[in-house]
């Protein structure tokens, strides 16, 4: 089996596989293939699944959706005001090309650093998106500016989260680092959400001025109250804690385990404290719009329900990750 795979075939497979998976997948393919043809056939069946696995692990579905939404808003903000007729299908193709390139860039990032992307794929994806915009008759400069702005906004919003690299595998020696890293993530999350809350309050307060008191005015006021409720809970029930110094290993384990469990409960209760406060405002706005545009009102309510459901699902996935962390801490507790 020394001639399977051929050097050229193995070089091709090495180049096409995500670096994180290449080591063990190439070994499995070499061990299980009796001929170059069988190697190629197995490789073709393995490649799409391995790439998709790394997209889900490194970019995450939530991250992709977030990046897609930001990119779409950036494109809409730039293309909508333009007077020339815009081929919206062309814009959708350009958007899809860019988001797919970013997903691949994440999947093919270097091993050992979970949140680093392959910059060459990002650059190639950007050029491909610009190329598709030019071919499809879109204003290329505006599209380039919109995609770049959206990418920068995504990085800024995600940066505090991804650059605080997780410490090494959990052990009695790294427990304190893990506990502090966890509290740091919670602090950044609360800061980000508080900033978003201030934006919601500001935007709705601007709508209140000059608006006669009625259903729409009430809905904006309810949104402000809802955002305030969320921000209060973020800094009370969902607040981060300072890891006490001088704790014994057993006490530190208990502290970290209890903190993970507390944040898990917070995530599971997102429909109550994060989404619930905005429901009255949505309903009042829907009632107000119903009298003049019933179709749009119904569509808006359905859209909001979908967005709320998606946010809830995202937090359920976050809760599963916390459950996994709690399991690791409990395993460490049993063995200590």
């Amino acid at each position, binding site marked *: 089996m020394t001639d399977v795979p051929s050097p050229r075939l193995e070089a091709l497979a090495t180049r096409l596989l995500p670096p994180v998976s290449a080591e063990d997948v190439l070994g499995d*393919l070499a061990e299980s293939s009796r001929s170059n043809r069988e190697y190629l056939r197995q490789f073709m069946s393995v490649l799409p699944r391995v790439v998709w696995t790394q997209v889900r692990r490194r970019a995450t579905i939530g991250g992709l959706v977030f990046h897609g939404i930001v990119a779409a808003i950036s494109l809409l903000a730039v293309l909508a005001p333009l007077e020339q007729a815009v081929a919206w299908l062309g814009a959708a193709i350009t958007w899809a090309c860019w988001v797919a390139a970013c997903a691949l860039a994440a999947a093919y990032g270097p091993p050992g650093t979970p949140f680093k992307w392959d910059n060459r794929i990002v650059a190639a994806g950007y050029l491909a998106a610009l190329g598709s915009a030019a071919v499809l008759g879109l204003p290329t400069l505006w599209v380039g500016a919109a995609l770049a702005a959206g990418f920068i906004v995504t990085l800024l919003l995600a940066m505090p989260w991804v650059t605080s690299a997780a410490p090494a595998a959990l052990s009695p020696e790294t427990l304190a680092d893990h506990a502090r890293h966890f509290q740091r993530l919670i602090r950044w999350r609360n800061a980000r959400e508080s900033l978003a809350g201030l934006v919601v309050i500001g935007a709705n307060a601007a709508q209140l001025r000059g608006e006669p008191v009625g259903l729409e005015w009430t809905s904006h006021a309810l949104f402000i109250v809802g955002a305030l409720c969320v921000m209060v809970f973020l800094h009370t029930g969902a607040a981060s804690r300072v890891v006490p110094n001088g704790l014994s290993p057993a006490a530190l384990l208990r502290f970290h385990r209890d903190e993970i469990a507390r944040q898990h409960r917070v995530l*599971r209760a997102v429909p109550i404290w994060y989404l619930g406060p905005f429901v009255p405002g949505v309903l009042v706005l829907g009632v107000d719009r119903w009298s003049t545009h019933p179709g749009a009102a119904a569509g808006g309510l359905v859209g909001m329900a979908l967005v709320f459901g998606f946010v809830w699902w995202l937090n359920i996935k976050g809760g*599963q990750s916390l459950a996994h962390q709690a399991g690791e801490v409990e395993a460490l507790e049993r063995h200590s």
Partner: protein
Amino acid sequence: MLTGLDYIYYVYVMKPATPIGQFEQVVLTAVLALAENAYGVTIHAEVGRLLAPKPVSLGAVYATLDRLEEKTLITSWLSDPTPERGGRSKRHFRLQSSGERALRESVAASRRVCETVEGIWSSLPASSGRRWKPVR
């Protein structure tokens, strides 16, 4: 509010073992059977043996292993490089306690299905020529 959150936690979080599909059950069985020798190639071969003569692709096994690891039913680690694989490491897999529980419940459900089906088929007389018909 904490009492309410605790209630929600115990209602929605403390649920039974993670349900698994048929192929996931087979892959978990292969990981269990292979013990310390469970890695991509051996798991693929064992799954192929369990599902014979139906062919199984290596890609399908990888996708299922990834899904099971995401559900925290199994865990994986990279071994030292091995000379017979061109100096490349193996990714070994091991069942977690949650995976054992999920497999146990899945096997119990499969056993109940088998007993029910065999009970129905064995009640049909072989020489009567009658075929079993569903209740309408």
